[in-house]
């Protein structure tokens, strides 16, 4: 049956990239859901100053929520054994010093691995936040996003049209249609959503895709 992955499906596929002992920062949106599917032993970081925090507080137990314990976008979690808290200076040294994997949402990713994810343009259309730091220093940048805009245009493009977050940093893009690796030769299509052909995915993608010899269906 031909269908696009839903947001949880994208997150689940991206989470397969994470292994026991990895330090991971998850961006706003789809990336946040990766935590639900990640291996035990993956250690999550939030840039406002905690590493190795525990499960999110469920809406059924609001009494467990505490403003001292939430992530960068305000989701409450509970402390866990082995957690550490720290100031933002230290938090961003963690991010910048190449020890972390980040999974980011994006508006666009270019053929060369440029990412645009902080602003839709316009005078006050966006806010810089920590995305430029996250895309800079991490040992691996994974992007999760919908393959196309609401209007059906490609989000994977020759050149980004939105204000850039960082040039040439994305390693892997996971969308509702495909898993694509950024390589020096170009974008390598490795996996396609169930029921989709290479040609159909290519038609919804800006740059020409290289087809992996071992191309397969996205496995969840």
């Amino acid at each position, binding site marked *: 049956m031909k269908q696009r992955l839903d947001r949880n499906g994208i997150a689940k596929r991206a989470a397969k990239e994470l292994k026991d002992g990895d330090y991971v920062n998850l961006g706003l949106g789809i990336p946040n859901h990766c935590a639900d599917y990640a291996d035990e032993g993956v250690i999550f970081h*939030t*840039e*406002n*100053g*905690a590493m190795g925090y525990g*499960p*999110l*507080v*469920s*809406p059924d137990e*609001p009494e467990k*929520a*505490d*403003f*001292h*314990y*939430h992530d*960068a*976008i*305000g*989701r*409450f*979690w509970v*402390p866990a054994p082995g957690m550490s*808290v*720290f*100031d*933002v*200076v230290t*938090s*961003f040294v963690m*991010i*910048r010093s190449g020890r972390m994997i980040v999974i980011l949402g994006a508006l666009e990713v270019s053929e060369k691995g440029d990412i645009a994810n902080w*602003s839709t343009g316009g*005078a*006050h*259309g*966006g*806010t*810089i*936040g*920590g*995305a*430029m*730091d996250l895309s*800079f*220093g991490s040992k691996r940048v994974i992007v999760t996003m919908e393959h196309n805009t609401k209007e059906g245009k490609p989000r994977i493009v020759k050149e980004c049209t939105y*204000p*850039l*977050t*960082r*040039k040439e940093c994305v390693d892997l893009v996971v969308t509702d249609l495909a898993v694509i690796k950024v390589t020096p030769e170009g974008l390598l299509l490795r996996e396609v959503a169930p029921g989709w052909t290479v040609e159909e995915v290519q038609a919804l993608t800006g740059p020409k895709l290289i087809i992996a010899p071992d191309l397969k269906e996205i496995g969840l």
Partner: protein
Amino acid sequence: MRNKVFSSFDEAVADIPDGACIGMDSWAIAATPQNLIAALKRKGVKDLTVVTHCFIPMIFGEDKSTMPSVLLPQMKKLITPVVGIAHLGGTAFVEEYVEKGLEVEQTTIGTMSSRLYAGAARLGGIYNPVGVGTVVEEGKEKRVIDGKEYILEKPIRLDYAFVSAHKADRLGNTVYKGVFRGDGPVMAMAADFTIVEVDELVEIGEIDAEHVITAGIFVDRIVEIPEDGLATARKLRELIDELHSIEPARKLMFG
């Protein structure tokens, strides 16, 4: 012992002049020195430069939660990585002030922290790798060092730091709780005068030397938050309950 303990927030901010540059950490409601901000509003100084992580519109009334944006009419300049958030109308709330002359300097979160460290250590500038090839580099000097591009960023020094902390002793040795630590420690170091509001003032010796996060030398004034103050455990609890009752907030903040 030199007294650092003030009995009111108004007294603690009484000498802050027009034009002061004030660091006040804020990650929305978390880590915000709400009582000091409220006192500064009451004082009514103007032409302030505010340095903060998160500058968003007031979500609740000032009696419930006071954030840096309550100072908008008193501000000349804002340095922050986060202006507004999409689901609260984006940056619309600052635009009327920008039209009237408010300068907004956006910086990345990590860059702001590095610039505060640079201010504290009295560096003249740092070559920063983040933001190369983006709007962040506009109008700034760039330089290639060992084959990589960097942007020259200026240090941030503060006249005053407002810090929200958990406990302090009378010497100013301070500890935080959870993500309220934020940029409090580096702002305290980058400031000429640091004013800390704490949940609890404790006796000397109660904080273990190994656990001190901000040493007393960086703390000039301490005010203990009274029961009827802002950002008390009770007030924060009430805010959570209120947010939990609002559908979009519950969806955002609960797993």
